[in-house]
């Protein structure tokens, strides 16, 4: 069995940056990632896209990832692409399946750098073919370089929606309409946060404002104050019906609707290990409880990058480095001359996180992202609607019992798309704050694994 000093799950900004620091200091580092090339979702396809027109259209922040990828490639860390981590046991024994089959790894420390997923934002019709997330469309843009065949409708809010619309238009695609679901932020609070943010990260905010202005100019229609959405159609999307804050209801025809309501940390891995989590009201998300180094409540398990709380690529880089420094020092392997490294990371991290509170505030999702109406499917796998879950909640307590009685969260996505909505419904029905509601317990495996892959482990010698 392989016994690296450090196993890193995820080859995005945080995982790669941690690997570079740890491997350069002499640790044996393994990085396991589901994608065939490094970069994570944010820098997906970067090595292929760098130096092409598409790469340029994706923008400077995207292209900046190339330096990190190159450093990672040269770091000496063992990189296992196209490989899935499907279970980590509390002893840190880790199960992976990749091109070379299924095997167990016994590292001394694990860094979870699994990034984020788009916030599940259920609305009527969100399971129809033709409804996709904006992130999904952006992935198709990065590789193999595809855009919606017809002018597309985009609904939602958050930086990614703006960025994608901007990139799409630069590459010759078209936005038929943008349904802005952003709520007007309470002015006083937002202004105070904005002032602080502008002082420390004016350039980023200027960029965002530019995307906004660009979208206004280029979108066929721009509809503000959208408070409710419904995708229409039976076998596929044929249109969108939306309602605005002033009560206006309209329908438009489209065969493709892209939706985005922000991103939330990938918490499945940390929660499966029993790492403590908490409700982050500002980000309307559960986040792992971590110390200033990214150490979780479980010894030997660290979390960095967006999986530690949404912060973006630059913050992820710094958190990855800090985690690596901590692991080095825990293992007594911190090289001399690293004294300044920590301070530099912390300074850069603070700078990267400066606009976050402002962004979180202005892009706080509308309420029915969390509490959709009764007809909306919550659990995509088991096809359970809000109505079904509210009914079951009258005679069961807590997410785990709800799951047992309704099968919500028991399908192949293992609750990744319904855990938030289920927790919100419980909080709503029981009039409790989200922080008091325990989401689904995460059952192994972390991702479905084929029976033959599990069976193949029977031939391996029992671990000590």
């Amino acid at each position, binding site marked *: 069995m392989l016994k690296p000093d450090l196993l890193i799950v995820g080859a995005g900004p945080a995982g790669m940056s941690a690997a570079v620091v740890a491997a350069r200091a002499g640790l044996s580092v393994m990085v396991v990632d*589901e994608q*065939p090339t490094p970069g994570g*979702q944010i820098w997906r396809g970067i090595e*292929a896209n760098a130096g092409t027109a*598409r790469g340029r259209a994706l923008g400077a922040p995207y292209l900046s990832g190339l330096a990190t990828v190159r450093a990672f490639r040269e770091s000496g860390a063992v990189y296992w692409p*196209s490989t899935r981590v499907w279970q980590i046991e509390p002893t840190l024994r880790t199960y992976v399946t990749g091109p070379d089959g299924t095997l167990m790894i016994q590292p001394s420390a694990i860094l979870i750098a699994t990034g984020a*997923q*788009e916030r599940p934002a259920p609305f009527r019709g969100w*399971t*129809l*073919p*033709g*409804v*996709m*997330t904006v*992130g*999904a*469309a952006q*992935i*198709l843009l990065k*590789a*193999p*370089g*595809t*855009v*919606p*065949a017809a002018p597309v409708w985009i609904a939602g809010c958050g930086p990614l929606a703006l960025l994608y619309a901007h990139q799409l238009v630069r*590459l*010759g695609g078209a936005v038929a309409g943008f349904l802005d679901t952003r709520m007007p932020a309470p002015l006083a609070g937002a202004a105070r946060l904005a002032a602080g943010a502008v002082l420390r990260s004016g350039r980023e905010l200027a960029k965002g404002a530019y995307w906004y202005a660009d979208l206004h100019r280029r979108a066929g229609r721009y509809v503000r104050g959208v408070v409710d959405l419904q995708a229409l159609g039976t*076998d*596929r999307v044929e249109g969108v019906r939306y309602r605005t804050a002033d009560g206006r209801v309209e329908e438009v025809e489209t*065969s*493709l609707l892209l939706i985005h309501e922000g991103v939330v940390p*990938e918490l499945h891995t940390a929660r499966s290990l029993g790492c403590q989590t908490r409700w982050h009201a500002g980000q309307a998300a559960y986040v792992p409880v971590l110390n200033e180094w990214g150490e979780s409540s479980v010894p030997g398990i660290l979390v960095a990058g967006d999986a530690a709380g949404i912060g973006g690529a630059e913050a992820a880089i710094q958190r990855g480095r800090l985690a690596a420094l901590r692991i080095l020092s825990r293992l007594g392997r911190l090289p001399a001359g690293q004294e300044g490294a920590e301070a530099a990371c912390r300074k850069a991290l603070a700078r990267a996180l400066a606009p976050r509170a402002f962004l979180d505030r202005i892009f706080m999702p509308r309420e029915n992202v969390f509490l959709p109406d009764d007809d909306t499917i919550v659990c*995509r*796998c*088991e*096809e359970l609607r809000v109505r079904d879950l509210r009914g079951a909640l009258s005679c069961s307590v807590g997410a785990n019992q709800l799951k047992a009685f309704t099968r919500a969260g028991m*399908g*192949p*996505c293992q609750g*990744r*798309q319904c855990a938030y909505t289920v927790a919100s419904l419980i909080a709503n029905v029981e009039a409790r704050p989200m922080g008091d509601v325990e989401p689904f317990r995460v059952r192994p495996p972390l*991702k*479905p694994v*084929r029976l033959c892959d599990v069976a193949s482990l029977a031939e391996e010698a029992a671990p000590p």
Partner: protein
Amino acid sequence: MFRLLEQGRSGEDAVTIDLDGQPVRARAGETVASVLMREAEAWCRATPVSQARRAPYCMMGVCFDCLMLVEGEGLLRACQTYVRDGMKIRRQIGARHVVPSC
């Protein structure tokens, strides 16, 4: 539903996969889901619960809606499955059926 930005030079569409018995051209290194999204029938399965049609939704492996039957390999996420020449892909209608010969 989607279109390629750059129509590849000849030879760049180097791969042909079999989708429900029809040959479909694909680019080397792309995912089955991304090929599917350029098809007129851009859906991947009918659910085991209600036979409702589904299509790739998240493209990053967290929604498990893009499950498709890959010959010899089972029901896999199309967005995490990379094309190989001659690969046989089937839309999955309802629950998966296992037969003694498979």
